[in-house]
């Protein structure tokens, strides 16, 4: 990597020279203050391990019981998919599709796409279509709403507390763990490092 590195700010287009950023710090645009790049610890093992853990947790929160409604001997067990199916049954197909995208499809694709890039890169191999996958990952990112769903679980529990007893199942704990593991994984990925490996000597 060259000592000085020319870069344009994504939010104000200012051209600026960036000195090599020491590990663990970040470069900030001198005009508008947006973060330009971050130098994260150079290791692909940590994000890859965390992503595999996230895959297991993703399968778990889909397979195991989510919340159970208990009232006077009545018991009604639900899975994460139950609400999506109920919305579709009530004629709200568009809403069901939106929730499925935000909760299941985008997080699932996000995991697959990240692993598709990081596993070969960590083994110093080229990945066909890597930048296209990066582009997809960036477009998907705002639609990844698992953590907001978790807040929704909390609100629903409070809302129904007076009506019945709601018992959280394994899926609730897996979902919580999934959020933290995925956050740790994305915090450990440095896209600039991935791009530089692409350009560097093969």
């Amino acid at each position: 990597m060259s000592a000085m590195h020319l870069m344009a700010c994504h939010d104000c287009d200012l051209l600026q020279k960036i000195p090599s950023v020491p590990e663990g710090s970040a470069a900030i645009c001198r005009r508008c203050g947006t973060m330009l790049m971050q130098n994260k610890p150079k290791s692909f093992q940590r994000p890859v391990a965390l992503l595999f853990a996230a895959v297991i947790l993703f399968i778990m929160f889909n397979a195991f019981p989510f919340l159970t409604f208990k009232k006077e001997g009545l018991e009604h067990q639900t899975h994460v998919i139950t609400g999506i199916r109920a919305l579709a049954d009530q004629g709200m197909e568009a809403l069901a599709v939106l929730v499925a995208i935000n909760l299941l499809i985008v997080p699932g694709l996000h995991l697959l796409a990240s692993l598709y890039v990081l596993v070969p890169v960590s083994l110093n191999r080229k990945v066909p279509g890597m930048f296209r996958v990066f582009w997809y990952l960036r477009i998907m990112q705002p639609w990844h709403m698992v953590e907001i769903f978790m807040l929704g679980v909390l609100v629903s529990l409070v809302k129904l507390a007076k009506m019945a007893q709601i018992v959280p199942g394994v899926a609730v704990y897996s979902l919580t763990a999934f959020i933290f593991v995925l956050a740790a994984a994305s915090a450990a990925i440095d896209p600039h490092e991935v791009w530089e490996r692409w350009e560097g000597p093969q």
Partner: protein
Amino acid sequence: MNKEVLTARKAGLIACSVCHLLCPATPPERTAKSAKCPRCGATLRSRKPDSIARTWALVMAACIFYIPANILPMTVVTSLGQAQSDTILSGVIYFVQSGSWPIALVIFIASVFVPLLKLFILSYLLISVQRRSRSRPKDRTRLYLITEAVGRWSMLDIFVVTILVALVNLGALATIQAGPAALFFAAVVVITMLAAMSFDPRLIWDAKEKMHE
């Protein structure tokens, strides 16, 4: 602020939106539509295309949908033959009355305050860019970044409806159904997110450069 500023566009360069590589803009810049990034192959654009027109269109659409989203029922609870419908605001009022202040505040911020704030901020940014305003570009950029980051949290109410619909499904005893407002509200959230994405914050700084020329 009389420092000499050089933007990528002035220098005849375009930063790739995917891999951040600086590429030369093929002159003339207007026809750079077909230029591709040599490293990753993404289409190179100096500014987002038709940013102002697209953002205005989406902001207006969201404003229209915001009205039925607040007037129509979000959920319909049927308990032993009796139906009771709740709007977004009556849901907030329920939490206030039952003493769950923090939850009431969270829902109010996510469902009422944030969508309105987003619409106001985006309108303000659009008007300021169209009037070539040069005041406080740094603060306006920050305002934009906040708008972009916070918008997705409005989906909270949609997820609450999804969970309620799944849990309270006890046949004749009690069922909760999603009301028409849920659809309009989801549309508001999605459209305001798209509006924030189509706005280009670099336009805020372009007015400043015109002054130096």
